[in-house]
């Protein structure tokens, strides 16, 4: 075990998988000579050479399409988006090529499309977004969002070994703010198994990605107020661990869904509908959602903090549910 940041855990997984499998290569903007805008691939060029760490022109659709193709003939490309906001430039290749290839022809496309998501770092409308719902809505893509350094490593390892296109969404705030003990060597977290971050009996908070940290903080606050809160971290939206969600809600009878992406048609709506459909008879209160407001992510800190979910907003919704 070593104490690693979330970012170091991602680097570690990439490096180990590249050493293990010569078919894994990295492709993206500024990842080779510069080591990546966030330095995730620093030193990779020296170790693996320019055939496996490929700097690209600023042309996401072009290099994503190329990487997708290579994935169908035995390679396992890992594509880095410098900021996940630029994934929209490659949207067509992802939703129409990657997502549909196996369904159309039975030809596998093992590719990982990864990059930093999330706000709270005052980076403005084009360096802060959370696009998971676009991809969770597209059949044929797996969507993974690690909230811890251990999971960042374990889920990325599983994603690289997965035989399908995986959208792997990192959180840039956690990159250098969160660190914990991470297993050395091979560490795999299966895609589609949720984690319980706290165990409780009065309320289930279902979340994923960096928002899980807010939910854990809320659970601690409410514990002091005498409430027992269970935080379910989905870890992947596709595949979705329905069983863990439903088990938890059947136990607590109260459910709150929290995520950083904006509210309308966000993935929380899907979770809320699932709970309403499968757990209606168990519920003691309506399912509530806390998410960002339905506006672009603004730059100025007071605006951005007003837009994002917070410990206070989640705690407020939790108290309403507990008092219902």
């Amino acid at each position: 075990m070593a104490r690693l940041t979330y970012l170091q855990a991602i680097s570690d997984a990439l490096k180990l998988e590249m050493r293990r499998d010569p078919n894994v290569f990295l492709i993206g903007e500024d990842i080779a000579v510069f080591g990546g805008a966030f330095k995730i691939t620093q030193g990779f060029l020296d170790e693996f050479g320019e055939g496996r760490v490929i700097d690209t022109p600023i042309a996401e659709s072009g290099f994503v399409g190329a990487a997708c193709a290579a994935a169908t003939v035995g390679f396992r490309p890992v594509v880095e988006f410098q900021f996940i906001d630029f994934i929209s430039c490659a949207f067509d290749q992802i939703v129409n090529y990657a997502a549909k290839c196996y369904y159309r022809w039975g030809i596998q496309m093992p590719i990982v499309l990864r990059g930093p998501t999330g706000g709270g770092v005052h980076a403005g409308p084009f360096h802060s977004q959370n696009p998971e719902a676009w991809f969770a809505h597209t059949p044929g893509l797996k969507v993974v969002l690690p909230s811890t350094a251990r999971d960042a490593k374990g889920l990325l390892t599983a994603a690289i070994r997965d035989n399908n296109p995986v959208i792997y969404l990192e959180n840039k705030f956690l990159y250098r703010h969160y660190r914990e003990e991470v297993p050395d060597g091979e560490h795999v977290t299966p895609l589609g198994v949720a984690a319980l971050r706290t165990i409780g009996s009065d309320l289930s908070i279902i979340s994923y990605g960096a928002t899980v940290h807010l939910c854990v903080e809320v659970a601690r606050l409410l514990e002091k107020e005498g409430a027992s809160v269970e935080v379910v971290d989905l870890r992947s939206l596709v595949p979705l661990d329905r069983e863990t969600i439903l088990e938890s809600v059947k136990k607590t009878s109260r459910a709150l869904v929290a995520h950083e992406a904006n509210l309308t048609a966000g993935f929380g709506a899907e979770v809320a509908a699932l709970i309403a459909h499968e757990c209606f008879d168990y519920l003691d209160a309506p399912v509530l959602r806390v998410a960002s407001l339905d506006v672009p992510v603004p730059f100025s800190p007071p605006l951005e903090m007003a837009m994002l979910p917070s410990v206070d907003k989640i705690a407020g919704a939790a108290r309403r549910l507990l008092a219902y």
Partner: protein
Amino acid sequence: MSQTKPRVNLPDYPAELQADPRDLPYDKDQLRRFYEAMKLARTFEEKLASLYRQGKINGAVYLGMGQEATSVGSVSVLKQGDFFTTVARNLSAYFYKGVEPRDVMARWMGKDIPPSHGRELGLFLADIKNLGNPPYHNGSMASWIPSGAGYALAFKLRKQPNVMLAFTGDGATSPGDFYEGLNFASIHKLPLVIICEVNQFAYSTSLAKQMPVENVADRAPAFNIYAETHFGNDLFLVMEAARRGIEHARGGKGPALIEFKTFRQRGHGEHDDMAYVAPELREFWADRDPIKMYREWLLKRARFKPEEIAAIEDGIAARVDSAIQYAEAQPMPKPESVTERLFAPSPHDPKPEDRLNRYEPIETPSIPGLTASHDKSTGGHF
């Protein structure tokens, strides 16, 4: 803005093949094989259009009539292990490479046959192992230029002496993917050959409204790549030009863009009556139909007897008829199969024991929202 009919400028392409058979390295069997692939596609598509009008084919059908020489000529000069991808107009290329008409017909009828099992139209096929035809995205024009660069990249990374040949059309040179794919391929000197069939219309929109240059090849200097432009209905001209492009790419000199001027004899799909095409343009290209010209060349210059040609054509007609019978007899896919084969099985798919230890606490949560001056993290504010 007043709409005036554009004046039709007709090029000076000859209405007969120029090659002297004594200069060609092909024996009679090989010359027959070219004719069979082109004529088989033409006959098949004529039949497919009838079936569509009879309501026996669902959706829409897209035909490649008029583009048989570019299709067959280009793929005929590929070597073992080379890849190619097609657009909607290259059925004859598939037939030349050995695809069975009965399987294509069954796919058009939505039947349950591999590899699509009814999930994809009849004109899109991917079969890497048997055909060298890899999967790519056919939905939006030019989407397959980046994937073409990707297959060429795979050859280069593996040091394989192969090329990737991608058919495309004039309409596909407008989207950004055309630039992004060719730009990447040229930077890395990838063995990518673009066969651009300029068939005069992108759906209904003329070349003049599609591109501000006369030739697609005029765009090649932007990528610093090899390019040629030719009349595309002369089978032997196509072969020579495609071969030069392919050998350029195979020699490690980077991509080649080979442009062929040809004509889409039918509408974008069979639902399109082509009312936007001037009659003199149709007539000009009808006189230069690639199959008609090649047939005349076989008779006049390659010593094929009329009865030999007739026998080939009878055989083709019978083959298409039996393809229809075969296709009609195939089963439709079962409705309950619709959700199958969405995800490929993977080594770390969840197992029951993975659910045993789901409690993994977060000891010290990280809460965003710090302003830059309060942020004590190391290695940058992010």
